[in-house]
């Protein structure tokens, strides 16, 4: 079920109507979350709901046994990780692996059959969330819950189920235990404001940019339009489309959680105002980047080893992060490019040097943006040939006639203006303005989300 659908409005109204009554009783509360989250997920495809229960069930049992049978904790952790990664690999990466294996086996005239399975929505999100629970229990950073309803209520909590933020069990399970405190006036309004901002970003900015971006990349069969300005503009549009799409989703999720009486951590913190790539990754999809930091980068030694080993750790982490997004060489290259950027930063320390210059912060932001836009080409392109063609045109600085970019250009400017306003003036945005200005501003966003909405599109991150 999409947040930007009529069904969801009916669903949310029903959920909160009953929530008032069930939240007092622990089991009823958890059961209600599970039931409604199953409806929320099953609305897309009921037949994949079992996968969520199997993946979660493995971690629930593994974590319990890790605590109960410490002698076998390593084996149990291995079992949990192998099962989760096996399921993820089977549905998400098996076709990609088979394709690449066939290339290697070609000289031997051997072939592996390629089977494309429909990717269960949100599989990467809930698998990672579920796995982190077992790892945290293994490390002793989190107590295993003995109540399966408690565990699944945390895993399935519908606002974050299909596109994050990736919650840590140690953050969410303790919140779910006591009766949630009814949100006071401040929390209610914060929730409403987050939801309004989320919808505005998704349906006004992202959805109005989407047709132009889709048309630009969809015309790949006709060759790449030979205009640098055109592709820089398209990439800027895509950058704002994906940002507003994804951060819009998490804003709505955080707002809904607030209304339920829970808190989800910040997932985006104005990433396009980053003054270095490392800064960018501390602001972009924070729940995923911290997941990779805590469960991949740091266990490999992180930056507490030799400089060369640190670079290797970094590259492995970034490439895996790229692969998390999808089974394609384009995502791997996207991750590798970011790894190269961070490596370059570590070697040259260019952000510090630039920041010491007059207007250094603006120059640094511009340099980061150029790097990020170039990497986004690989993320969004339909093929490697198209991606390399676009990169060539972007840096050839040629000009050629192309289709009008209106009205998407206006929405790009709106997105830039909105983000600049939010970033510069309102951090956090609810706390600065006083009196009637706040509710009036939120009302404007809600009305804009209704009357200026683009054609309803699915959230981009659902596909991951």
């Amino acid at each position, binding site marked *: 079920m999409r947040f930007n659908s009529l069904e969801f409005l009916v669903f949310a109204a029903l959920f909160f109507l009953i929530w008032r009554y069930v939240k007092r009783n622990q089991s009823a509360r958890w059961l209600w979350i599970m039931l409604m989250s199953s409806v929320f997920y099953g609305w897309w495809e009921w037949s994949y709901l079992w996968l969520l229960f199997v993946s979660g069930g493995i971690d629930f049992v593994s974590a319990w046994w890790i605590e109960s049978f410490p002698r076998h904790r390593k084996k149990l952790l291995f079992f949990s990780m192998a099962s989760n990664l096996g399921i993820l690999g089977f549905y998400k990466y098996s076709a990609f692996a088979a394709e690449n294996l066939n290339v290697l086996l070609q000289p031997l005239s051997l072939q592996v059959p390629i089977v494309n399975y429909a990717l269960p929505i949100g599989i990467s999100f809930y698998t990672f969330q579920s796995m982190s629970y077992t790892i945290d229990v293994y490390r002793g950073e989190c107590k295993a819950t003995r109540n399966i309803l408690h565990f699944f209520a945390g895993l399935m909590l519908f606002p974050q189920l299909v596109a994050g933020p990736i919650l840590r069990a140690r953050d969410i399970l303790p919140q779910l235990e006591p009766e949630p405190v009814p949100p006071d*006036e401040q929390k209610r309004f914060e929730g*409403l404001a987050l939801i309004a901002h989320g919808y505005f970003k998704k349906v006004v900015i992202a959805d109005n940019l989407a047709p132009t971006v889709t048309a630009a990349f969809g015309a790949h069969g006709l060759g790449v339009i030979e205009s640098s300005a055109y592709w820089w503009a398209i990439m800027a549009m895509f950058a704002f489309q994906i940002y507003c799409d994804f951060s819009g989703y998490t804003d709505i999720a955080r707002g809904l959680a607030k209304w339920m009486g829970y808190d989800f951590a910040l997932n985006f913190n104005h990433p396009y105002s980053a003054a270095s790539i490392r800064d960018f990754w501390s602001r972009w999809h924070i729940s995923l980047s911290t997941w990779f930091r805590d469960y991949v980068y740091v266990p490999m030694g992180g930056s507490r080893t030799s400089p060369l080993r640190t670079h290797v750790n970094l590259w492995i982490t970034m490439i895996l992060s790229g692969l998390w997004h999808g089974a394609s060489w384009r995502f791997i290259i996207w991750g590798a490019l970011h790894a190269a950027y961070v490596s370059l930063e570590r070697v040259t320390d260019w952000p510090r040097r630039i920041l010491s210059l007059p207007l250094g912060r603006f120059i640094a932001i511009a340099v980061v943006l150029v790097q990020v836009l170039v990497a986004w080409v690989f993320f969004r392109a339909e093929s490697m040939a198209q991606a390399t063609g676009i990169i060539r045109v972007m840096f050839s600085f040629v000009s050629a006639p192309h289709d009008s970019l*209106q009205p998407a250009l206006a929405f790009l400017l709106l997105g830039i203006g909105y983000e600049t306003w939010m970033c510069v003036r309102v951090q956090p945005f609810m706390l600065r303005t006083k009196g009637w200005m706040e509710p009036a501003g939120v009302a404007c966003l809600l009305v804009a989300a209704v009357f200026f909405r*683009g054609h309803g599109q699915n959230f981009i991150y659902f596909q991951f």
Partner: protein
Amino acid sequence: MLRDRSFQCVLFVIPLALLAYALRPETARRDDPDGIFWNKVSSPAVHDVVVAGDSRTLQGVSPQAMIQAGAGQKILNFGFNAACLNRRYLTAAAEKLDTGKKRCVLVIALTPLGLSRHSEAASNFNWYAKASGPELVFRKILTPIEHFVEPYQFREELKKVSVSHAQRFPDGWLASYVNEENSTLMHGMYRNILSKSPVAPELVADLARCIKEFSARGIRVAVFRMPSHWEHQQLEDEVSQWNEAEMKEKMVSAGAAWLQFDSRKYKYYDGVHMQASSASQFSADLAVQLQAAFK
């Protein structure tokens, strides 16, 4: 409660939404004519005249213009895209009439395509007719809300839409304003369909039986061939096996009044569908002929 900012927000939303609605130009609305059809299928049996037919009727008959010309008090345009004039469709149209009134009239606009096997499968009416009762009630509530919250149209096509656009009316008329006329635009499509799927004699026979049954129930029936550009009419005559004299005879002997129109009086943007101004004129002419036929 007034100090609650969420409540204050709702208070701000109401005037802002009304303002956004009031300022939204008709031409800047998305072309989503779905609601008009839901309205038709869920319409109650309160009409004294119902006009049935395909997309030519949908775009060519303005109930408001007919009322102004004195054809009745409550008139419904029951036209659907590619509608097949079969028993199922005609029965649904007749159900919209208030048969308690003495002077209720079912008007059937014939086209060769509407009497072909092709339209029996392609009729848009089939899709809407499948809807369940609760769905229709839900739609009935939803349609005005959808209309209210329709977003502004920002796409590049707006430039074209502003000179060629469609306007929906609650009485079932879809008014078309098209800048460039091309009387042969539909020739290829019609030739292709009608040569493979000409007028079906079984459908014509069943239409005649329906008319007899309606007449027996006290419903007066008027039938005519929906006008189109003379070149198009010629094409239809050539490929569809349409025999006007024979058709007229069958309809009249079944109990219907046969109406005749001068197709050259009206403008068709694609050779078959009328411009809005011509639809108003045609509707007034239809009203006059109905009054003459059922004096």
